[in-house]
């Protein structure tokens, strides 16, 4: 599933968050949107997801224009910065949620749902926590539940907003490695937002450096590190 955001401009009152930004992500790639706060990277992610709408520009999935489609119809998996787990539901119910709200015709049976959820929880190594509530989990565990929940509905596109932002040290390392392996295990195109250059360079197939609503450079990690396009990219990638 390829993603294309064409000529996206987004304004919040007087502030221009995105200034005529064009981004193309081929199917199966894992792309990092790297930049400081206010660079527009989360805004771009949300516009691709359908959680926000651009003032101008269009979004395409596999060449099909989905600019005006509601977020429910886009089939995106979104992992929020602060996980956004449903805190009154168990881990199992959280992951199963997307399957339980499918229209009746497409909804799997209770057994099928249980099988899918169990498989996903095993994938993120949390099957033993299925009956716990989010408040009883650590940050790293919550993040993995959020990921499993997003993957449960077999999204064509996976979008992650600063997925490891609130985690520390070892947990970040482990989760980074899991994210790196994800496209090998599941066929999904992923975009993740980060302000951590080390993370972007280590995990992504391609890094998109953003600043003040514009894309400064778009290249594989090695190229961004060794051949930064301008002073900003130099400062930011080191």
């Amino acid at each position: 599933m390829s993603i294309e955001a064409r000529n996206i401009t987004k304004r919040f009152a007087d502030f221009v968050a995105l200034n005529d930004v064009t981004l193309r992500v081929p199917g199966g790639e894992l792309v990092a949107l790297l930049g400081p706060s206010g660079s527009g990277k989360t805004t771009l992610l949300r516009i691709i997801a359908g959680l926000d709408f651009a003032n101008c520009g269009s979004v395409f999935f596999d060449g099909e224009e989905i600019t005006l489609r509601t977020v429910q119809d886009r089939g995106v998996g979104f992992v929020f910065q602060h996980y956004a787990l449903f805190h009154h539901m168990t881990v199992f119910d959280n992951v199963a949620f997307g399957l339980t709200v499918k229209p009746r015709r497409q909804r799997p049976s209770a057994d099928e749902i249980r099988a899918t959820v169990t498989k996903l929880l095993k994938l993120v190594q949390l099957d033993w926590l299925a009956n716990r509530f989010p408040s009883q989990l650590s940050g790293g565990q919550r993040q993995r539940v959020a990921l499993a929940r997003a993957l449960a509905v077999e999204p064509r596109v996976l979008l992650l907003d600063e997925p490891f932002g609130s985690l520390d040290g070892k947990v970040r390392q482990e989760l980074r490695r899991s994210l790196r392996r994800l496209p090998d295990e599941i066929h999904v195109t992923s975009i993740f937002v980060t302000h951590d250059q080390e993370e972007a360079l280590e995990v992504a197939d391609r890094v998109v450096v953003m600043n003040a609503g514009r894309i400064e450079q778009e290249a594989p990690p090695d190229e961004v590190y060794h051949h930064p396009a301008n002073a900003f990219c130099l400062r930011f990638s080191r």
Partner: protein
Amino acid sequence: MRARARTRTDPALIRRSLIVTGLLFLGLFLFLPLMAVFSNALAKGISGYLGAIKEPDAWSAIRLTLLAAGIVVPLNVVFGLAAAWAIAKFDFSGRGFLITLIDVPFSVSPVISGMIFVLLFGAQGLLGGWLRRHDIKIIFAVPGIVLATIFVTFPFVARELIPLMQVLGSDEEEAALTLGASGWRTFLRITLPNVKWSLLYGVILCNARAMGEFGAVSVVSGHVRGLTNTMPLYVEILYNDYQFVPAFAVASLLTLLALVTLVAKSLVEWKSESTHPAAGSAER
């Protein structure tokens, strides 16, 4: 150990005198009036008490109070949820104005709250002519009572929900949307369960005020015996007629309602603290 304890708590004398002051205050303004209501209500014994309650006029007052509350509380739940949702989740021009508007019933005297409906719908009011031509009675009839009660109880549900919804934010709802849930499904399965204790708290307060409202309802009611008297109004009529025992008997029902409300409130508060400790402290 003892030295630390002494510096952290007030001396025993201060603690005890504060507690005694608090108890005296409660005793004077709460317990004595409660005792007075019940002792006067039972002055002619249980048969006198039950006789007063079984009067047809008393019954219609009780029915009218229950009817008003039964209409007002669900409507205010809908209004309150809608207003809190709009204010907490969205930014729109007029948002500040809406918040102020929600607080108006609190700052306006209940008598004025009733007056505005008389000025609007009364015979000499703005819409009086139109209503008379279409034979619709609002003032001095049940619709007027319901309207006045809606007005004075409107803020309760909204004010309970707004701070909680603001603290909770929209993340969970957005997550539900990305997973394919419709707006309505998201509201039912994500938003409502998250605010259920605050909603219940608001409903309890709204109900207590709806049943106990006097000033606004008094102005619009017309005091027609057996037709447009709620329980508080009926108590006033009985008292003015020197029928003290029946007056206190009906008043004791309202007092019992107040006690039940207090117990329900405490239960909800306790339940809310144990499930959402952070959100609970944010509201209160």
